[in-house]
């Protein structure tokens, strides 16, 4: 059987396996640990700023009176504009690609285009938004100015690739037998899509949209490009008004040297992260419900 040198060789390989196992565990725990440290740091810095007036006051030069009201309202405007718009455009594109498009060059071109768009830095979308929506390509009647609408439209373009891909996956997961059953009953293509495919894909689609919106809510760079004001002490009256959103307000506070404003930024981050975690939880709950049904 095994002699001593064989045993030693095997032991050495096992020991090597053991040490690298530890190393891999350490690397993974490091990533988890960083998240923990980040959250603890932010809570320690910002928790004492989370007073009721923080939610009802406008930004102010006095850090102890400053609040997040205009930013929260701005973010709410964003969600209200983006949700329906990105739903229609994203799901529409996904239905076309999955149900209608023939597997030809046009389809693979659109598909390649979507996956490339998903990798373009967000600030480049900001440049597009500045030229296309804020300035209306130089045509005065089309220019939206530095408005809520211009910002929300830019963000819609930014998250569209994410939504299309998620919706495509949800639609692809609908079994073909359901479609065949619908056709067998004499339904047209659109009737089948509308009454059979969409209802059974909708939980997956909604999960994708919630996750995409949570990405948009935390996005800062494109809105800085659009020129979202950092000092907004009023609420927008309509979608053509100037605005600020939570991450922009955080950016504004972080950029100031005083410690009190950094604490305000931390408080703003607590609000933002809570919002994002709530959205993520609802997305996960939706996904689980969907998986159990399927």
């Amino acid at each position, binding site marked *: 059987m095994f002699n001593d040198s064989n045993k030693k060789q095997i032991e050495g390989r096992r020991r090597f396996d053991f040490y690298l196992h530890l190393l891999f565990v350490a690397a993974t725990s490091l990533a988890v640990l960083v998240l923990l440290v980040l959250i603890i740091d932010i809570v320690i810095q910002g928790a004492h700023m989370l007073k009721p007036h923080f939610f009802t006051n406008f930004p102010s030069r006095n850090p102890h009176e400053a609040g997040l009201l205009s930013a929260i309202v701005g973010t709410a405007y964003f969600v209200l504009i983006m949700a329906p718009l990105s739903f229609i455009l994203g799901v529409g594109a996904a239905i076309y690609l999955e149900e209608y498009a023939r597997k030809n060059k046009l389809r693979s071109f659109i598909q390649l285009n979507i996956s490339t768009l998903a990798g373009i830095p967000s600030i480049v979308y900001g440049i597009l938004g500045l030229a296309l929506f804020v300035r209306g390509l130089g045509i005065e009647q089309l220019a939206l100015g530095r408005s809520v609408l211009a910002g929300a439209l830019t963000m819609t373009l930014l998250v569209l690739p994410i939504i299309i891909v998620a919706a495509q996956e949800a639609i692809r997961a609908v079994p073909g037998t359901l479609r065949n059953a619908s056709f067998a009953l004499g339904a047209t293509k659109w009737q089948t899509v509308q009454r059979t495919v969409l209802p059974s894909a909708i939980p997956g689609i909604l999960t994708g949209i919630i996750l995409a919106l949570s990405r948009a809510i935390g*996005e800062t760079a494109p809105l800085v490009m659009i020129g979202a004001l950092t000092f907004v002490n009023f609420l927008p009256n309509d979608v053509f008004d100037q605005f600020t959103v939570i991450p922009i307000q955080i950016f504004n506070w972080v950029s100031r040297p005083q410690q009190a404003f950094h604490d305000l930024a931390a408080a703003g981050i607590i609000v933002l992260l809570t919002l994002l975690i709530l959205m993520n939880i609802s997305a996960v709950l939706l996904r689980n419900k969907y998986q159990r049904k399927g």
Partner: protein
Amino acid sequence: MVQGRDIFKNKRVFILDKIMPVLLFLCATVSVLTTVGIIWTLLGETIVFFKLINPIEFFTGTKWAPLIEPKAFGVLPLINGTLMITFIACLVAMPIGLASAIYLSEYAPLRVRKIVKPILEVLAGVPTIVYGYFALTFVTPLLQTFIPGLGLFNALSAGIVVGIMIIPMISSLSEDAMMAVPKALRDGAYALGATRLEVALKIVVPAALSGIIASFVLAFSRAIGETMAVTVAAGATPKMTLNPMESIQTMTAYIVQVSLGDTPHGSVEYGTIFAVGMTLFVITFLLNIFAQYISRRFREEY
């Protein structure tokens, strides 16, 4: 027989069935129009800019000072800053990301995977401005205790934080590639007496290499385009330096700096946004195409 009302109903069904594909196709073209729009706006303003500033000066100049006299329009300091941040980020993220991918795919019990994967997803979902805050108020002071004389704004702190940001991307994409390696290959190696480490490093990683490299390239491209963390933590002083302790400026941070100020439309300073943006777009676009090419061309089929 079909009654009057039913004819109307059928007609509506018929018309909808004809119209919807067209409307849906229009939705799909929005993404193509977005790309066209990006290229068109960037290209248009960049051409105007290059009529005022010599492209050779732009791409080879080593001084970047478009907002202060004497003006200089050499983009290299911005590219230098961007690459330094990206390099530091990759040094942090590639080993950690790959190690945790190997752990999750080859070692971790299902229960651990179920806990760790969502945590990594949360790490990926944290907005970049939050990482900027973290770099400025936590990482930099922490580094200052080790490195005396480290300035408030430095490339090192921003680079580390960008690295943390791209760990989940590398780890989850690499893990997907490793999970796609068929179990039979692993079983074959185990049957020959290989340890788990040997299976991971000699069987799984080589078989998933195209996916792993693609994840590296995508993370690299993501680090180049990262904006808010470097704007907040790396400073606003474009310079040709290789010293990570110094304050620098990246391409993205420059674009933010200009758009925060009051730069008149049509001026040379305004044009710099588009010229720098175009450079950024071309670099990330090529990297993304390259990543897709790698993962398709070098994929091992089993």
